[in-house]
């Protein structure tokens, strides 16, 4: 029950003034700029863009600063800003096969066309706190670029007939969860859209659960690649597609164990992850959960949380989740009053009987 009550304006104003002071911190230290956050906390920016479901590095950096580094609050701010804009047009699907690759590794093949490119990775670092970090500057090394193509590892397997191919594009625009409620069972396109903006921690936990036995997964990273892709859009007034910029994305192809049927021989199956920006953990977790959610299509028994589309998709969105959890902080004075009256009357009856 909701009852309008007035009051608290002065307290709210004072609280927000204090918040602003806390955000700024010690004034004897220089203030951060959103540009510094964009440049130096780039992976936080990428995460906020992905979960805010809006690609704009500058806005995500501003949101992180305004949210005092609370990344879920920042994603919330970005979603709210997004709601103030109208959508002009949809882009053509990005071609990750033509990615200008900065990082590309495969755990399934050592030698593969295009090679294993480590890129700017935390892998193989010692995870020791580096107290010299602020003082040091390392110039990146350079080497002659070969300009070879980097075929998808999954395509190499598909050509041999060992990998199930994904359903081809039939040209119809994909359904959009920002325009219509999520249906169940949920088509793959909507599952992928929902996972792409899902909370990284939630997806990571679910992905991890499939590895630990909650769902029958035995995954390999066929390929993980990160780099820039071209964004193409065909404005109605031009009648042809133009290139409107580049975005960095991370893609993960996760190979999983076999499926087959009376009609098709045993084949590897695969899960797919795609993240805005550089987000390897997100792309990998998404690919694990995408594969787990194929259970019913592949005729697997649904036994684990990660295989349950309603459970996964309705709880993956951290802006929705934080809204519902945090609304508990708002006044529930009247609701609670009724609970109090109820328990008092139950206890009165109990004491009479005793």
């Amino acid at each position, binding site marked *: 029950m909701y009852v309008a009550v007035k009051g608290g304006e002065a307290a709210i104003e004072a609280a927000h003034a204090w918040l602003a002071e806390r955000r700024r911190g010690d004034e004897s230290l220089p203030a951060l700029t959103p540009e510094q956050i964009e440049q130096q906390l780039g992976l936080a920016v990428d995460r906020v863009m992905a979960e805010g479901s809006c690609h704009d590095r500058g806005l995500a950096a501003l949101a992180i600063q305004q949210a005092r580094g609370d990344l879920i609050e920042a994603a919330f701010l970005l979603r709210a800003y997004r709601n103030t804009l109208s959508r002009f047009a949809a882009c053509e699907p990005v071609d990750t096969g033509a990615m200008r690759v900065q990082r590309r590794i495969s755990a399934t093949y050592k030698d593969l066309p295009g090679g294993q490119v480590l890129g700017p990775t935390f892998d193989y670092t010692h995870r020791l706190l580096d107290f010299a970090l602020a003082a040091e500057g390392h110039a990146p090394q350079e080497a002659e670029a070969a300009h070879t193509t980097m075929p998808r590892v999954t395509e190499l397997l598909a050509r041999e007939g060992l990998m199930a191919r994904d359903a081809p594009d039939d040209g119809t625009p994909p359904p959009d969860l*920002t325009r219509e409620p999520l249906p169940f069972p949920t088509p793959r396109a909507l599952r992928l859209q929902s996972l792409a903006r899902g909370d990284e921690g939630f997806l990571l936990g679910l992905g991890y659960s499939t590895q630990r036995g909650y769902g029958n997964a035995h995954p390999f990273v066929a390929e993980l690649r990160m780099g820039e892709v071209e964004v193409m859009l065909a404005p109605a007034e031009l009648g042809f597609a133009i290139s409107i910029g580049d975005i960095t994305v991370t893609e993960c192809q996760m190979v999983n164990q076999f499926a087959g049927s009376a009609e098709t021989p045993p084949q590897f199956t695969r899960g797919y992850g795609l993240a805005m920006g550089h987000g390897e953990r997100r792309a990998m977790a998404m690919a694990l959960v995408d594969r787990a959610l194929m259970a019913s299509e592949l005729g697997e028994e649904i036994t684990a949380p990660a295989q349950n589309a309603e459970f996964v998709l309705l709880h993956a969105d951290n802006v929705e989740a934080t809204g519902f959890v945090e609304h508990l902080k708002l006044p529930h004075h009247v609701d609670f009053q009724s609970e109090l009256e109820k328990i008092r009357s139950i206890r009165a009856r109990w004491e009479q009987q005793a």
Partner: protein
Amino acid sequence: MMTRPEWMAALARATADEIAAELAAMPPLPAHRTIRGPEIGLTMLRGRAGGDGAAFNLGEATITRCSVTIAGGTLGHCWRLGRDRRAAELAAVLDACLQQPDWHEVLLNAVVTPLHRRQQAAAALTARRAAATEVRFATLATMR
């Protein structure tokens, strides 16, 4: 020779300051009238399941578009990622002028080509940095 999609792509990747810097030494561009924008909105980014399958919506991106007309009625357009309104208007004016025979070559040489070269150089630098991190496996066979 550069096609219209190619010059539009180069202009879409340049900031307003970069375009203005290339224009600084040029005679003033013809007067223009904006017929739409520059305005900021959204586009829906899309990917494909498995990288090559059916399309799905990845999430939105901010976008800026502008359409202008110059004397004689030629239309120029710009659509670009991000929120740089000034760059969108400059690029739309340049797109209109680049379609004019008397402006085409001079603008291509003095403005678009330098921007395009710088973008290519930046991409080549990234490619060389990536190449330096390519793994050279030393297997027993090659070490022997």
